[in-house]
């Protein structure tokens, strides 16, 4: 078997590693709200964000809500987590993946009318990859696979 002095050394190493893991684990747990990248529309509706502060909101682009101006880059759409909706106004270039039914993360502020004035809009895709043919076949079979880049309740 292992010599006693070696076993002692191994014990000390394991003790240090375990202690540090617990310390770092607790720190991350305490910080967990700040580590989240964005708030959901429900969190915004519940007033978790202070008025006038800069923050990020993450949700789906509601079907039929995109109103793109023809003469400028201004766009208005609604983001939703299927519980609450938040209208967003943005002027700028949208990522290629931006479309209705797509996940987005927008950065900006809520104005007094409750409209989110975005300075940036990013696309968030989910973890499911498939060819257009497979997607079409699934839709035809009625098993329309929802694109869901957000977990059931992002605030948990």
């Amino acid at each position, binding site marked *: *078997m*292992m010599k006693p002095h*070696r076993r002692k*050394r*191994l014990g000390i*190493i394991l003790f*240090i*590693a375990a202690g*540090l*893991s617990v310390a*770092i*684990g607790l720190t*991350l747990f305490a910080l*967990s709200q700040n*580590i*989240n*990248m*964005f708030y959901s529309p429900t969190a915004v509706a519940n007033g978790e964000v202070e008025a006038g502060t800069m923050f*990020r909101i*993450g949700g789906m682009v509601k079907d039929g809500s995109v109103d793109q101006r023809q003469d400028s880059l201004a766009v208005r759409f609604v983001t939703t987590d299927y519980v609450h909706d938040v209208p967003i106004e943005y002027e700028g*270039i*949208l*990522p*290629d*993946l*931006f479309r209705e039914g*797509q996940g987005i*993360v927008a950065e900006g502020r809520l104005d007094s009318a409750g409209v989110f004035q975005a300075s*940036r*809009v*990013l*696309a*968030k*895709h*989910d*973890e*499911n*990859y*498939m*060819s*257009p*043919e*497979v*997607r079409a*076949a*699934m839709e035809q079979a009625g098993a329309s*696979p929802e*694109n869901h*880049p957000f*977990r059931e309740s*992002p605030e948990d």
Partner: protein
Amino acid sequence: MAGRWQWFHRLGSPKWFYEKTTRWLPWLWGAMALFLTVGLVWALLFLPEDYQQGHTSRILVVHVAVAGASLSFFPLMAVAGAVTLVWRMKLADMVARNAAPLGAWFSFLTLATGSIWGSVSWGTWWEWTDSRLVSMLFQFFLLLGVISLRAAIENTETAARACALLSIVGCINVVVIKYSVDWWNTLHQPSSPISMEVGSPNGPEFWVATVVMIVAVYLFLTVSLILATRNEILQRESKARWVRELALEAR
């Protein structure tokens, strides 16, 4: 009693390692070339395009393989470090020392391929608020830290012990990287579950090429680490008789 630990102590002999790897290397090189060719050709020519991301998703094959392999460095260095601390085995430290720069390169490649991919599909190269991205950047810096720590301490044995401890502690960050996408809201997607059924989301037509590439990348990692360690063995053991005989033979 002695027999049970014999294999372990033989592992600690640089000469044994050098001779064994001389025989293994051609096979490893061959396997790596094969897997790398198959993986790349498959990813670039035969992988179906994604319904949302189109051809952009091909980078997944490289990104996932490199990212996965980059997570293996801290556990590897930690095990080697523990062996160094407990048994004072020189070979373990030589492996650990050469793993650090290699790991830094792997982390860099992960960040670079991820950035390129993100710039196209997310619309951003980098997000400081995404915990997956930041924890991976932290791993890159931590590996640079291990390299610097080694360089900063003059005494080889003290340096080995300090790096071993840092490597063991650094393993915690690997867990954070892995679960960051589950614990917090991120722009980065969670890991894709694989499906065994052809023609379903994440079916074999998508993931087999990635698995081939993961094997290729791990073979590349192994070959690189062996070559670097062999170099180090020759340097550190240059006074040993077998190394001098080897040098005479080569001449």
